[in-house]
């Protein structure tokens, strides 16, 4: 496969937890922006950024909503960093059945950070604009990446199977399954 050069825009929100004062302005303005019509209401419970805020444990951790997952994870981890212990879901971005964050409180539909996709375009996400403590900062950079054409997902999956079982077995299985499926 032939590789080619292409320009890619990378948007990063840098989160400096040491600078967070736990004010939750990010949650307020995020939920306000995503209200319909825009800014017509606010509700931190709908926010796509959530601050874990536990002053007595000195925890201040803003986390952005990521992908939806249908199942909760089996094993969970607890992080201890500089003597501070972070809960099992603290760093996780998933909208998942095991917690209420990143879901619409009334419908349970998953929420995901879209970097304030909006018309007109908002260059700097609102949570960053409203974070005067500068715990959240925004960086945009252009990277020239050498990108090999990505193999199709099916190709990648089959290759992985062949790596494990050999092409003959995979081919047999495919023939058999295709016959069953097609009958």
């Amino acid at each position, binding site marked *: 496969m032939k590789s080619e050069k292409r320009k890619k825009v990378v948007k990063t929100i840098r989160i400096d937890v040491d600078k967070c*004062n736990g004010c939750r302005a990010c949650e307020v303005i995020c939920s306000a922006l995503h209200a319909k019509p825009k800014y017509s209401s606010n*509700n931190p419970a709908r926010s796509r950024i959530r601050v874990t805020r536990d002053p007595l444990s000195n925890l201040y951790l803003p986390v952005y909503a990521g992908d939806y997952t249908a199942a909760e994870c089996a094993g969970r981890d607890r992080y201890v960093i500089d003597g501070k212990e972070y809960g099992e879901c603290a760093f996780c971005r998933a909208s998942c059945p095991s917690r209420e964050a990143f879901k619409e*409180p009334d419908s349970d539909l998953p929420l995901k950070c879209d970097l304030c996709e909006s018309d007109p375009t908002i260059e700097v996400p609102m949570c960053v604009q409203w974070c005067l403590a500068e715990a959240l900062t925004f960086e945009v950079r252009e990277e020239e990446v050498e990108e090999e054409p990505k193999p199709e997902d099916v190709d990648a999956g089959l290759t992985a199977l062949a790596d494990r079982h050999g092409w003959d077995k995979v081919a047999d299985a495919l023939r058999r399954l295709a016959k069953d499926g097609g009958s």
Partner: protein
Amino acid sequence: MRYAETGFNLEVDLTRGSVERVPTDPRLTAHHLGGLGTNAKLFWDRVPPEVSHFDPENLLIFGTGLLVGTPAPGCNRTVVSCISPQTRLFAFSMMGGFWGPELKHAGYDKLVVRGRSPEPVYLWIRDDRVEIREARHLKGLGSLETAEAIRQELGEPHAQVASIGLAGENRVFFASIEQGKSSASRCGVGAVMGDKNLKAVAVRGSKDVYIAKPAEFLEMCNEALAFIKVRAKSPIPGVMPILAGLGSPQEMAIHDEKWHTENFAWGNARVRRKGFWTKDVAEQWTGTMETMRTRLLSCHNCPMKCGAAISVDTRLCSYMMKCFSKLTYTMGAFSDLDFGLRIAQKATEHGVDAFSAPQTMAFALELLEAGILTDADFPGMPADNEGRFYWLLDRIVRREGIGDVLADGTYWAAQRIGKGAEAFAHNNIKKTEQLPLKLGMLNPIYFLMYCTGEKANITQIEGNYPQAPFATREEREAFVKDWPQVPDERFKEWFVEWELRGEKSIPQYPPPDATCEIVNWQEKMHYVDDATGMCAGLSSFPLKPPFHIHILPKLISSASGLDLDETGLNQVTKRNRTLVRANNLRRGLTREDEKPPEDHWKNRFPELEKQLLDEYYRFKGWNLDGVPTRETLAELDLGYVTEDLVKRGILKDEGAGVTP
């Protein structure tokens, strides 16, 4: 559809164990906005003067301001009202933090508590679901310990909890309600909560708060944030560093304490220590703060960092503090900052007011020294200075022995002790302890604020006007150049003319008419904030704040949909202020009560003082007894107040039109 507010109050009767979600009348919002204004109205309607502080009929209201829970930066304040055990007047003690916005998102503007539970209970408010839960197992726990225990037993780590410690449980007259980094401390609101057997209120909300004109409102919020950024880079020259920026005095961030330690009084608010702030002290205290302060903290949706997490042992945060509580224990005990921060941790868990508690303890030791109290009153008290304060604090919050007397605060304790103890309770207005401050020359502006402020706390009436003139005319001219916050140009002229010495200096300058305007403006801004829930730190307290009288009407109207301009806001504010006074007048407040702490100023001017008070009363539309006239009440649509005050013989029926 209601905007900014939810349109519902949560009414809880602890005697019956009943809970009710009650819709509110939108006309009351138009008349009083919210917060203090509507609290005062509920008290007027439902708590007649025959009800005293520890009667079950005394209400305990947690009233959020109208804009609390909207994206308006810094709008997070809750006004806690009850009849105060200390002043016996209508109390309005306030807290910021996170509790108020959470209540709004749970769907309520106010929590109104009446009655008394037979057993200790706490409230758990989860949107529409409200439970009165048993709290016997929480009895005796500290305020922060209680909050933590409740979050754990509910499995709700994000619940916001307002709670009392031992002091509130034992009805200490200066007990506070604590809520993380914030507290409603003044006037003994925690004692009334304890009297109702209510240990805590936990809240979690997940509902929307609506905005009437979103685009207009958000633009104002963005402009305020932009202004705050600019202001952070341009502190005001010529004032002490803690007051040069925005927010409440920046005690947690700034180490230079020369001004407080040398100008404020130590012990029982008497002793000034000139030359105290040496290089050694500065180094030692800076080290203490740098070691024990683990993070600067904000309240809900506010970019300021007025609070701090303080660590007194191995934990990274033992409690949170802000503002002048940093020094009140240190100075009350003639000790150092390390002691002050350590005992404040205990005091926060017990839940006591940080002005009243150290002064009351220092007062007790003065009485011991003077022989009015004796060693027999202090059995088992340690000999060392710091040990004595820990011992006294413990006796007070448990109401044991002499602690039971001291738990009533200096005014009432002196009454109980007698033998001349009254002279030692010298730093009070309206029976409640004040900042420990003793000065030379009477300042006419501060004279009126101390006399007439019904919050009984100078910081809740002062603010937007500089506390003293700058040394040179050039500095004053430079200051007024960029001062759009003033109501009109005259305020600038008065300030430019104000000299440190000579003809145009205190006590004769500003002249009484200007003094009335300046005092009225400063007080008015606090009453606006107390109704909207805006923190004073972004509005009524600092010099040159982002929110002011020319901006706030539009902020309020775009959020709430109310048709409100500057004239309208002035009218609402005057109505609220008058209604607070009316509540207090029928509780016995008289002109006699309106005076500064006994020895606040060394140089006093009885004739000038009388003239000032007369003129200010007139300016406010009150008669010479400090009672609003019929005309004033009619103009404010407070006819029902006229009727009541006349019936009670407080407003003498001198016939319409008689203005003294």
